[in-house]
């Protein structure tokens, strides 16, 4: 069936099978491979995208359910070529090693900070509790999100760049 989905402010009209999952629609139909496909069981959270502004695990949503809705993926985070503070935070605080969980972590982090610009460590850990990282032990992810909270703009200071 034909669906029209707005992804990162761009409209796409595609003919899809009803059983196509949103994650595969994004990756295969649209070629937006920034969203990762992981456990396929709504546990790992690497496939998190925004659905009308709410983070959702895209392996557990049908593409047809997104017809007429707004999706935002990790490709839509950087505005005008400038990294979002959460992306900058992951760079500054080494919030990733292999990078597999990162797209989902970034989308959840941005949603958390939009709702709660100054989250405590406990609130950050709760927000990412539906996501798995097997590299960092989460410490650096939590630090990265705190960094983003403390830097409303994306420019790192000269001191941070040299560090």
């Amino acid at each position: 069936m034909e669906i029209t989905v707005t992804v990162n402010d761009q409209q796409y009209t595609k003919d899809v099978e009803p059983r196509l999952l949103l994650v595969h629609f994004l990756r295969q139909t649209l070629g937006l491979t920034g969203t990762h496909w992981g456990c396929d069981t709504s546990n790992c959270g690497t496939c998190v995208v925004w659905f009308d502004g709410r983070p959702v695990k895209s392996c557990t949503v049908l593409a047809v359910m997104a017809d007429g809705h707004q999706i935002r993926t990790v490709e839509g985070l950087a505005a005008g070529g400038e990294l979002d503070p959460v992306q900058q935070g992951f760079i500054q605080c080494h919030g990733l090693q292999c990078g597999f969980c990162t797209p989902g972590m970034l989308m959840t982090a941005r949603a958390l900070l939009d709702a709660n610009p100054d989250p405590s460590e406990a609130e950050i850990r709760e927000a990412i509790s539906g996501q798995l990282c097997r590299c960092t032990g989460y410490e650096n992810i939590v630090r990265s999100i705190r960094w983003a909270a403390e830097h409303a703009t994306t420019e790192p200071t000269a001191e941070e760049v040299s560090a």
Partner: protein
Amino acid sequence: MQVPAPFSYQRATSVEHAIELLGKHGPEARVVAGGHSLIPMMKLRLAQPDALIDINDLNDLSYIRVAGDQLLIGALTRHAELLASPVVGEHLPIFHDAERVIADPIVRNFGTVGGSLCQADPAEDLSAAFAAVRAEAVIRGPGGTRTVAVRDLHVGPYETVLAPDELLTEVRVPIRPGGGSAYEKVERRVGDYPVAAAGAVLWLDGDTITDAGIGLTAVGAPHFTAPEAEAALRGQPATEERFAEAGRLAAEHCNPVADQRGPVDYKRHLAGELTVRALRRAAARARGEA
């Protein structure tokens, strides 16, 4: 890659339209709301509906409000909305206790209250919480509206009393003064289904229990309830001894099965212990201590 079997997909534009579509497609059609239980089952081919009727556009089924002495919860209310609702926290903290440990914050953004009840998973948390508080389910079908006690909603694992062309539209929870409620769960890891869980609601007159409700999940309790334990509490003092006796009865009358989450004796132990903890916390809340 997990891919569901083929099916047709249609969006309902109203409750009446959903019922009409369900009637047209027959018993092999399924309603999809959040889809966070159904779609995983379809991916594993444990569910293979011929048709999906999507009700996510029915915004008039998404609400939480108090009407008289009842809390009304629309079937399309998301878990996250139930957890965020101050009115729910004020009257029925059992639901906030339960929602904090249902899946994870991302899943709670999509999964719905009505979907949880209709999925009728034998380890589902809200089924036990709604059973504990003696909620009513409002069901619409081609012949009109009927209400069914949540305690009578489930007829077995993944089976409810809903006919193929009926839709759960609302859950009504009685609000009675002098009560306190709580939910206690043991899970293997964050966001998992429970090894066992218990919900309790108590009404006190001084220190006497005037009424009690207990819900159990994941331990094979018939209709998610523990009527023997409830009966043993009514008219009794709200003491540790009575709670222990209620826990013993709850454990005795449930029927857990061994699986990857634990052996029978452990689950039975949890059913009793979690009943005691839920009663203890419900009583503290009824007294205004917590």
